[in-house]
């Protein structure tokens, strides 16, 4: 890392730098705490990088403009928080159905409704996966540091492009506003979407065309037809045809679920511990401190949340006796993690939820572990 450049920046600023490093060329935003610094940073930086920054009239317009720009063939992103994220849900479903690569940064705050604009939460992780109507899959990453705000923003862009899918960076007020060390590596791996009519040997081309069709960019003579309605592979609208609908929606889901091993990112501390804590983002802070000082307690920290990292969860669950899930919500990942853990043979899976804005303190995690009778 000797060539890496080092900066002392805020999490949201790290996200700005990563988006530029990933090749962002279009950003549309609307002011909302605690994500506003992403828009402010890109308002300064993006025009100088040859891109377009746009402040739209609402969040629905932001995500819509971003999808439009993506069909123009550029990398496009928006950033928001809870209420804005709720407004974007319909268009997120549209992006999933039309297979549009878009990146959405959600710096989560306490909800429901206006809730706690300045306080952290993980209240949108279920909405990320299930917020729009119908069956669809997305990709979501959860950073736990300023450095990961950078690294996982790059991943979010890469996987969005590779699988032609809306992809999310689920940060929160804690990490978005945290200041810390950022090392920008000299070489950043950037994946571009597989374009129709363009031959390239890169990671996006590894995905079979049957799963992810080459992207027919507008203005290249493809006579592209993009629609959110049920359509065939040659874009014929067939909303009445049960077979066409079933095949399309099944493929949209399978292209992500089948690629789980490629997408998922995680970190394990004390992997042989009999007690495993599963956490992500800010809710891993307390657990990480405990695991660092107590070899009996392990930590599976999920860096990606969707598609659900079933393999790493099952792996630790098969080896440990008891599992504790920490979340800054009332248990949104918990039922999914619990299902996988119980199937893998873990006897007990408990939850330590916390809302209100503060991550779980080590003392709180410890007292829960005591209550479970494991320390």
């Amino acid at each position, binding site marked *: 890392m000797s060539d890496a450049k080092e900066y002392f920046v805020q999490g949201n600023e790290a996200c700005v730098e990563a988006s530029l490093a990933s090749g962002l060329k279009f950003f549309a935003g609307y002011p909302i705490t605690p994500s506003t610094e992403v828009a402010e940073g890109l308002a300064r930086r993006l025009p100088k990088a040859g891109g377009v920054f746009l402040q739209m009239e609402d969040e629905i317009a932001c995500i819509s403009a971003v*999808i*439009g720009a*993506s069909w*123009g063939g550029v990398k496009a992103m928006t950033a928001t928080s809870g209420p804005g994220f709720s407004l974007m849900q*319909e268009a997120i479903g549209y992006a999933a159905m039309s297979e549009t690569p878009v990146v959405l940064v959600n710096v989560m705050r306490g909800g429901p409704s206006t809730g706690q604009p300045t306080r952290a939460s993980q209240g949108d992780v279920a909405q990320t996966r299930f917020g729009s109507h119908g069956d669809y899959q997305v990709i979501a990453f959860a950073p736990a540091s300023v450095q990961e705000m950078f690294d996982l923003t790059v991943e979010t862009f890469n996987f969005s492009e590779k699988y032609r899918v809306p992809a999310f960076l689920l940060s929160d007020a804690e990490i978005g506003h945290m200041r810390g060390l950022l090392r920008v590596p000299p070489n950043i791996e950037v994946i571009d979407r597989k374009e129709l009519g363009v031959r390239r040997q890169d990671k996006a081309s590894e995905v079979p065309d049957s799963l992810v069709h080459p992207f027919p960019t*507008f*203005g290249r003579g493809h006579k*592209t037809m993009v*629609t959110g309605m049920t359509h065939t592979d040659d874009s014929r609208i067939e909303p009445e045809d049960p077979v066409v609908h079933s095949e399309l929606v099944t493929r949209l889901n399978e292209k992500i679920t089948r690629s789980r091993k490629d997408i998922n990112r995680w970190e394990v501390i004390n992997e042989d511990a009999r007690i495993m804590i599963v956490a992500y983002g800010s809710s891993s802070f307390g657990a990480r401190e405990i695991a660092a000082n107590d070899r009996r307690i392990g930590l599976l920290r999920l860096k990606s949340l969707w598609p659900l990292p079933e393999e790493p969860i099952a792996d630790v669950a098969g080896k440990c006796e008891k599992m504790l899930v920490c979340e800054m919500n009332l248990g949104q990942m918990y039922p999914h993690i619990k299902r996988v853990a119980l199937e893998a043979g873990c006897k007990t899976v408990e939850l330590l939820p916390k809302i209100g804005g503060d991550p779980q303190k080590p003392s709180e995690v410890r007292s829960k572990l005591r209550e479970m009778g494991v320390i």
Partner: protein
Amino acid sequence: MDIFDFYRKDRWPHVFCPGCGIGTVMNCFYRAFNELGLDLEKTAFVGGIGCSSRIPLYINSDALHTTHGRALAFATGLRLSRLDLSVVVFTGDGDLGAIGGNHFINGCRRNVDMTVICINNNIYGMTGGQASITTPHDYQSTTTPYGNREYPFDLAEIAVAAGANYVARWTTRHVHELTKAMKTALQKKGFRFVEVVSQCPTNFGRRNKMADPTQMLEWFRESSVRRDKARTAAVDHVDLNLAGQITVGEFVSRDRECYEELLGVGKHGV
């Protein structure tokens, strides 16, 4: 270019009802586009949701059929990401003025380079004839069985007030004027808005004693007043649209700097 090269013949049969005004608009648009010698490969078409928003899917070029009400926002992103492409939006009264009203006002204000053609049939046709924001006062629809209690919106006047560079309104009865307005719109820069008052005999006419499309066209002819004459005739007439009269003509034609010029990101299209 032949009209059958302009429209995708392989997508027929189309979804439009017999007697619908959309065919007239498509015909006028083809003529305007063709007479100007514009390049289909350099033009992208965007629609929202509704009957009129289906037009882009029948044109032999790139088409973005989007979510309900958001066509202008999608078009804004597409246009600003690709300054080499001209963007044309087809939309309807419900899509543009009701659910998409905020994007309409701000689209006019932002003045991004695009042509927006709104087919105003005064009804939600695709869902079976519910009152829209332009259904005239006292007229019948499935959601106004005792007559529409509300008063309609004037889309063209809103576009003028919000800052669009070009605003015109004609009806499907005025095919020559409409074609000419489309030609003017396609040649200008910034946000160009053409409203076409159109007939929906199936879901509007049928419930308002005009089941025959020719009755509706006759109604358009009788109630249309040219804007230059309307200036005096329509004083204090708030219900400009349909109930009393349809003000037709060019509402504004100006050359405010378009958004691309203000951003300094490059040349405008067409």
